[in-house]
């Protein structure tokens, strides 16, 4: 199992049946492939609809029906189309149960950086800033380090997406939650030690007294 799959499988465990969720591209979207039996989530798309899924047949192809990544999709029974303001009203208004996004950096204060690397071309902000501020629960799904560089820091060093909004970090080595403003190590992957996590982490964190092994 590669890192992406480990992370996606663990993310999938966070969903409850009926959750309204907005998932970033990559690992977050991949997580829906591993939903537990009996758990269905409603996918919200920034461009203006919810309850979408992939095309199931050639007849579904409709150029007016895309998701926020620009892929053709189908809005299923019970889904709704709306305009951009309503789409972000849903986000900002706190109606999204969970959003899962990748990160360049996260810090111990719950700050997130995932939109801009100084000196590189910025692709943009899109709906990310609104999602992180608005969603009830913000889950960061990412690989633990980037080419050896630490990503879970004392303080983000690149421009932030939002401050103090991250609730949970899911990686291939460990799972953290923020509790009362403190980063708490909740789970480690089989074979990964707390010491190893400490070495790979700049952020301060506490270890949960019921530290668990990630079960995928």
């Amino acid at each position, binding site marked *: 199992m590669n890192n992406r799959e480990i992370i996606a499988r663990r993310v999938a465990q966070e969903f409850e049946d009926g959750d309204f969720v907005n998932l970033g591209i990559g690992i977050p979207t991949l997580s829906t492939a591993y939903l537990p039996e009996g758990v269905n989530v409603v996918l919200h798309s*920034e461009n203006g609809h919810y309850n979408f899924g992939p095309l199931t047949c050639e007849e579904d192809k409709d150029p007016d*029906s895309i998701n926020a990544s620009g892929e053709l999709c189908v809005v299923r029974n019970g889904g709704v189309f709306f305009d951009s303001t309503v789409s972000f009203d849903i986000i900002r208004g706190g109606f999204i149960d969970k959003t899962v996004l990748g990160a360049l950096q996260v810090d111990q204060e719950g700050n997130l950086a995932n939109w801009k690397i100084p000196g590189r071309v910025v692709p943009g902000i899109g709906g990310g800033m609104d999602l992180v501020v608005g969603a009830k629960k913000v889950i960061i799904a990412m690989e633990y380090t980037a080419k050896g560089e630490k990503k879970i820091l004392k303080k983000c060093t690149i421009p932030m997406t939002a401050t103090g909004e991250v609730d949970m970090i899911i990686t291939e080595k460990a799972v953290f939650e923020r509790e009362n403003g403190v980063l708490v190590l909740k789970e480690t992957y089989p074979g990964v030690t707390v010491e190893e996590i400490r070495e790979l982490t700049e952020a301060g964190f506490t270890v949960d007294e019921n530290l668990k092994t990630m079960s995928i």
Partner: protein
Amino acid sequence: MAKIISIKEAMGMIQDGMSIMIAGFLAVGTPEKLVDALVEKNTKNHTLIAISTAYPNKGSGKLVVNKQIKKAIVSHIGTNPEAGRQYINDEMEIEFVPQGTLVERIRCGGFGMGGFLTPTGVGTEIEEGKQRISIDGKDYLLEKPLRADVSFIRAHKADKNGNLTYRKAARNSNVVMATAADITFVVADEIVEVGCLDQDEIMTPGIFVDYLVQG
């Protein structure tokens, strides 16, 4: 009440330096005919207001590729490498706006509001130059209205009074952009007689629309 005109007449109203809202999300909802006509007209120094710069060969991105855009107010340029190139080479200015803030600023511009308070962007670069206001213990940024000289809208059906409906995800930014420009141009997939649209199901009342542009 909307007037039906030709593309040529529409283009006659557009001049160098005008700000232009182009509806659509990754070109879905964009009236390509109007964009193509503007590429042909080759006016310059426009300010583009759009969700994104779309693709090099689709949607608002075509104006970027043709170097007609001086400044873009958008939430995303990642799907248009030429926009990125012009940006890093200082050939085009970009104001990045969070997408929810962008559409709400346009809504304020259309509807006579002086701005709104959003929690989005507090404590980030987006806050620079903006007023932070605390309401009941929570911090918000005061975001100001956005308007344009003209807007390009694609509708699904339009009646001859300019009442519009949209289809599926092609609705996106079209609803607000139809309200916030001095001149609103609409290209509809189909123009129908007045009375053919259900009065409960019109998504953009014709009072907002200036011109229906015919093929």
